[in-house]
Structures are given as structure tokens and as C-alpha cells.
């Protein structure tokens, strides 16, 4: 099949960017989207042109490295699918496909489709852990956890940190990402002692990193490759308010 790619090219954060046309022939419908970009890049190399920079690694939908906006939608047209798991059979022969980077001021652009998502790491570093010392833990089965609770924690913990939720949000909010981590940990009996400080610090870090506020449009849930639920945002808000009430005696 043939496609016309319109790809965002931008040398660095301060340079002007623009969409550049790349017609591509002989695309195999069973090819993955990233294999298709590899094919284009090989052609660019043969022509002596600089390749299109994009981040990717595992190509099986789990590492969260890849992500681009395809025809206006982070990770492309399919639900519950990362860019690397998107295949060209999803498109039609002759389609025009517009490819842009994840756009959010908290994700500074590096080059072309590559952006800096380290703000998400800093949210985790602000408290998304259980302060246990390695090698000193009690016998694992001494902490019984109901299957429902373990499953609920697991569901929230499957967030891959790709940042699509931020990229799709009109406010560039990281509430789904943060809510998922808060919910993962708050479903478990471990780490309860620091739960209040955790949620307060993580929410404060989201603000500090320049992510916008959540206004419950739920685009993040619709776009999320792991189908992380916006219920977790509610859970985070509940945990946050409860913590604030306990800290100050009044809701924020």
C-alpha cells in the first residue's frame, strides 16, 4: 500500500518546527507503524538526509518509551494500543497520516518526535514508593492481601508511563498517571504510614512541574493504552482531600 506521511520536523526546542511530506510506497499492511518509520528512515539515510528521531524500545507495548500523535490522537486510532503495537493494516491504501510529537509544556521537545518526559520521574521520586529497606522484609505471606485488593492494585499499577494521558489532555494534566500510582499503593496494606504525605507530595510535584489541572473530560482514559481508569483520579482526589483534612482540619 501507499501512504503520504506528514511528519513534524524540529531540530531542537528553540528551532521552528514544521510538517514535512514523505510519500511512502510498498508498505506491507502487516508491518508495524514503527517498522514503517524504520523503512522511511532507511530511505532517508540512502538519500543522505537526517533521519526522523523518535523514541522506542521494546516494541511490544510494555516499556512505554514510544508515543507520537497520529492523526491528532496519541498512539493513533486504535483503543488500548501503543504506537509500537499499531499495524499498517489499520490504515487504507492512499491514506494521509499526520505524525506529531506528544505536546505539553511539561514535556519539552528534544527533536522531531522525541520529547523529555522526565517530569513523570520526578512525580514518582517525590513519594511514590514504600519506605521499606531491601532485604529486611517480613515473610511475604505474613501480609495477607485479599485477591480483590491485589487485583485492584495490579490494575492501577499497569500504567506504562508513556505520557499519552498528558498529551491528549487539553490542560496537559498528569492526573491519570499520578492517580494510577496513588491508587496502586493505596490499595495495599504496605506503606500506609506514609500514604498521606505521599499523595500530598505527588500532587504538589505535579503542580510544580507545570502539569495542568484535571477538569474531568476523561480523554485520558479514552486514549490510555493500558485502559487506566479515571476512577483513579477520583481516588487520588479523595486521598488528597482526606490527607489535607487530617493535616489542616479543612478540605482544600
Amino acid at each position, binding site marked *: 500500500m501507499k501512504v503520504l506521511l506528514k511528519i513534524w520536523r524540529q531540530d531542537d526546542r528553540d528551532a521552528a518546527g514544521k510538517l514535512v511530506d514523505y510519500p511512502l510506497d510498498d508498505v506491507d499492511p502487516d508491518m508495524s507503524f514503527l517498522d514503517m518509520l524504520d523503512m522511511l528512515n532507511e530511505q532517508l539515510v540512502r538519500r543522505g538526509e537526517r533521519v526522523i528521531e523518535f523514541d522506542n524500545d521494546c516494541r511490544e507495548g*510494555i516499556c512505554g518509551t514510544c508515543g507520537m500523535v497520529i492523526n491528532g490522537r496519541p498512539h493513533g486510532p486504535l483503543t488500548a494500543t501503543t504506537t509500537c503495537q499499531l499495524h499498517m493494516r489499520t490504515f487504507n491504501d492512499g491514506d494521509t497520516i499526520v505524525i506529531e510529537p506528544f505536546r505539553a509544556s511539561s514535556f519539552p521537545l528534544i527533536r522531531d518526535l522525541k520529547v523529555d518526559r522526565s517530569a513523570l520521574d520526578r512525580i514518582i521520586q517525590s513519594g511514590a514508593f514504600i519506605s521499606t529497606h531491601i532485604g529486611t522484609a517480613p515473610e511475604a505471606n505474613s501480609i495477607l492481601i485479599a485477591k480483590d485488593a491485589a487485583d485492584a492494585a495490579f490494575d492501577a*499499577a499497569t500504567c506504562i508511563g508513556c505520557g499519552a494521558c498528558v498529551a491528549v489532555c487539553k490542560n496537559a494534566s498528569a492526573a491519570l498517571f499520578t492517580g494510577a500510582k496513588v491508587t496502586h499503593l493505596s490499595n495495599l496494606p504496605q506503606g500506609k504510614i506514609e500514604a498521606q504525605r505521599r499523595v500530598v507530595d505527588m500532587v504538589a510535584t505535579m503542580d510544580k512541574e507545570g502539569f495542568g489541572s484535571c477538569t474531568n473530560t476523561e480523554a485520558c482514559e479514552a486514549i490510555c493504552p493500558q485502559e487506566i481508569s479515571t476512577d483513579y483520579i477520583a481516588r487520588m482526589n479523595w486521598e488528597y482531600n482526606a490527607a489535607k483534612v487530617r493535616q489542616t482540619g479543612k478540605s482544600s
Partner: protein
Amino acid sequence: MTLDAKIPEGPVEQKWSRYQATCKLVNAANRKKLDVIIVGTGLAGGGAAAALGELGYNVKAFCFHDSPRRAHSTAAQGGVNAAKNYQNDGDNIYRMFYDTVKGGDFRSREANVYRMAELSVSLIDTCVAQGVPFAREYGGVLGNRSFGGVQVERTFYAQGQTGQQLLLGTYSALSRQIKAGRVTMYNRHEMLDLVIVDGQAKGIIARDLITGEIQRYAAHAVVLATGGYSKIFYLSTLALGSNATAIWKAHKRGAYIANPSLTQIHPTCLPQSGERQSKLTLMSESLRNDGRIWVPLKAGDERSPNAIPDDERDYYLERRYPAFGNLTPRDIASRAAKERIDAGHGVGPLKNAVYLDFRDALKEYGRDGIAGRYGNLFDMYRKITGLDAYSEPMRIAPAAHFSMGGLWVDYELMTSVNGLYALGECNFADHGANRLGANSLLQACVDGYFIIPTTIGNYLADQRTKNLPSTDAPEFQQAADAAEAAIRKLLNVNGGRPVDEYHRALGAILWDRCGISRSPEGLQEAIIQITELREDFHRNVRVTGGSHEPNNELEKALRINDYLELAELMCRDALSRDESCGAHFRTDHQTEDGEAVRNDDDFAYVAAWEYTPNGTPTLHKEHLTFQDVKLTARSYK
């Protein structure tokens, strides 16, 4: 140099506790005066960084990803083993030790394997305390399942995303130390060389992957935890960035590489579907708990699988290995699949696959029951193939997966370079000639969390009084200049062939000649082909872009440059090991019914290769002694 594995005296079950009781310690006040570099922050490196940070050392941690959470450990699906005996099925540390030594076809070191089994118990405790949401029974206790090569249920899992959940646990422990200021994290940095001062590893040269700047970092010790290198086959289950550069550069600086040709071919991957494919996707081996593997009895049978009646199906694993059936170890299952495919019984459009059928399990457990166990794997299968495994069997095929070979390390996980350590998949230890399922996460975790924090102290205790070398030292200058020169050289070739073309060509050579089966003739031809390909690479490769900017092509070119050298060593290793063992199946050493024939008299050793500039590598042998497990022919029948 003679190889001293430094295995502690005494019975195998007391070696580790004796070592811990007698090794040198660094007191808490002195640890903050000591710097440690850790390269790679997956389960092994991230765990080491977190553990050493907790102890109070100054840790500088490096990864080429944009975040440590993306390490390839995240892609491991099935589980992590531990001898907890929660199922009361007779499991214990000795049995796990025995299964692993046997599973590795008696080419691993007893003392290391015993320690891995021993530490598995507290690993699960640590992970649970970190909040890793392992599967639970309704009563709240942890659940288990089985993997290949064992007859007990000792595998802990979090659906099909166990690696992800363990890595997120490690990443959170690491994040805690970053916040505490004990670990400085360098994301998007790739190690390009090792710096040795006075015979000791004292630093690294790294490239900042955004600015392209060549940087120098000094420390009292260097720990490599850079994962496996099976991406050398081009098509493999590994992430695209996985590479051998750090260990290869360490090798060129004096670290021996052990058993480099021992590559695990995983039996349950998705078959190749087209020429432009960049990777093969693994489907967890746990699927073999409930799925049954078969091919049509009649070669070239074109019927859809559901139209083939039972008596025209060949459940070849159940037929050949009745005791273990579909749960035979990976090397045996892969070879058996290749044998059937080569004999014309392969299925799918390219006739390169076998069926993994859930029909009977669906009848027994229902769709919901199967979805609960493997739902995400079935979803993944549908996304990639467009097919529904609930209504027809999956098509699976063998693919290059785990590298059992890697840097040679002693019992302390120190390489043959003083002060240089290697953890997890980038060392050779523990798995022998074949790795049992759910032991890779285990090894990575215990190396990082439990072993290195103790053994590195034994070395650092003597480093306390030594100053950190200046990064202006001539050794740093020389290594940095060499890295710059290698980059300039690649950019200046300005030929016509893209890097990926070389990688695909190299992969094809290795898969054909140093893959599931090897012959002396094939390996000799491969060495010639690799030499030619390497020469062509330096004449005709084209790397666009510049050195001081983000440049994916340059990153790939530097990695393939090292792969082209390592590939030759792999073939030399396979050629010199004149026997069949585990994943190393030599066609000239097999029984009449196609089983591997091992030669313990001549080859019960670890092959450790020393780099010699401008010459063939030198082989050093670490002879393996088996005191606690009897050397027997490995049978799963």
C-alpha cells in the same frame, strides 16, 4: 592469568553465610566517601543502585533510556521463581538448586546456583514489601504456577506482566534513593568505554544522547548491569536498544567473556510474518501450563487447525517427553519445534510455526478462567496478528531470547578486571547452557539487591584510603579520545548502506549458523562471512547526522560496530565447544533420536575468552566440579 572463582570453602548450603560472616565490611561513616558507578538500571542495576544507596554509598547510575522504568526487564512476562514451598508440593532450596543445575545442562557453577535458590526466598518478601502486586488466592496468600523444567509450582507472578511489576518495584526503590540524594541518575547516557587506572576499574566514558557530549565519570568501583545481547540476531525478543557495547568495551579492556555462544532460543514467540519486521514478540512460557503444542500429522496439511481431528494431530512434546510434556525446558521445546518445522509440518502462511492450542483448557476453565490467567497475552496476540486465540490455536515459533553467556564473574560477581562487577543477564553466571523459565528475573534481582551490596564491600574496604582518580588522568583522556575517534570514523565512512542492513545481514548469519543448531562447517563459514561483513561495514556504511546532537543512527552504528566483533567470538566459542549441551546443539553430537550428547570428560568447563588485540582470542577454562548434584544425562522423558 589463572581464573579464580573464589568459591568459599565448606558445604554448598553454608557457603554464602560463611562468606557474609567473613568478608570485609565498610563502616557506615566511610561508605559516603566511596563512589560507585552503575551502568544499566533494570532489575539488576536498579536494584543495586537502590541497595547501595540505602547503605550510604555515593551512586552514579546510568541508563540509555529516558527513564529507568523502561529497562527491558519490564518486558519479562511469566514470573519469578522462589523456593517458598507455599503449595506444599515438596519444594525446597535444594530442589530448586538441583532443577537449575540440571536445567542448565551441568554447565553452571554449583555455588552460585545454590546461592540464587537460597536468596529467592527473601526476594519475594522484599518485593511484597515494596508493593509488587503478585497474584493472590482468595484467602489472601500468594499464588504460584509452574514453568518448564520443574515439577513443582514455585513461580510467583503478576498476570503476564511480572517483569513490569518487579521493575516498577525496583524503580520506586531507586526513586526513593534519588530523592534522598544517595543516587545521581543519568538518563539518556550510554557507556562507551571503561577506564582502568593501575589495573583497577575506576570510571567510564559515556555519551550524553541528547547533546552528544563525551563525558568522563570516576568512581571507586564500576558495576555493569546492561542486560543481554541477543538483539545481535537482529530478530529476537529483545528491545531494540538492547546491546553489548558496555560489556564488549569492558572485554577489550581486559574482562573475559564466558560462554558467549550460549543463547537461549525461546520456544513460544510469535513467528516472523514479514521481511521488514524489527523484532519477534515473546508470548510467556506460562502459556504452556494450559496450552498444548501440536502440528498436523501430515506434512503440508493446509486445513485450518480446528478442522484437523485429534487423531491427525501430533502432540509431539507429549509424545516425546511424556513426563514433562508441554513443560519441557526451552532448549528442548525449541529444538523439537524446529525439527517438526524442518520436516515440513510447520503451520501458518510461511510454514514457520507450530500450534499452541487452548481448546482443551477453554473447555475445562471456560473463557473467563483462561482470560483471568492469560488475558493480556491473548490481547497482545490479537493486536499483533489480528487473530483470536480463543477461537483458534495460537501460532508460535522459536526466537532468539536470553544470553546465558556474558562477562565472566567470580563468586563475588567481580569480572577479571579488579573493581569491575557484572550483574544479571550481562554476566554468565547461574544459568549454565540453558536457563529455566522465571530464573532470569530472579537472578537479576538477587544479584542487585542482595549479592553486590555485600561483595562490593569486600573490595571497597581497601579502596577507602585511595583517592578518586581525576577525570583529567591520562587514562580518562585516552579513553575519551578513543570514543571521539570511533564516532568520527563512523560518520566519515559516508558509504551507501544503512546500519540496519548490516544488522539484518549479521542476524541472518548467526541465526542460520550459530542458532538452534550448529555444525563445525557452518561456524567456520560464519566466521568468514562475519569478517567480510565487518570489512564492508567500515567501507560502506552510511551514518547521517552529526555527533553533537540526538542521533539514533549513530547510536545504532556504534552498537552494531561492537556486535560485528562479538559475533565472531560467539562463533569461535561455539566451534571450540565440541559437544552438545543445553542451548548449544551441535549436529555432530546427537543420538539417533535427535537428543543432545554432552561430553563431561572434556567440556565440563566455563569457556572464558580473553581479548587479544590483533590476534585470535585466548581461551581460559574454569573447570566445573559437581559435588552436590550428580552429573547425569539430562532426561525429561
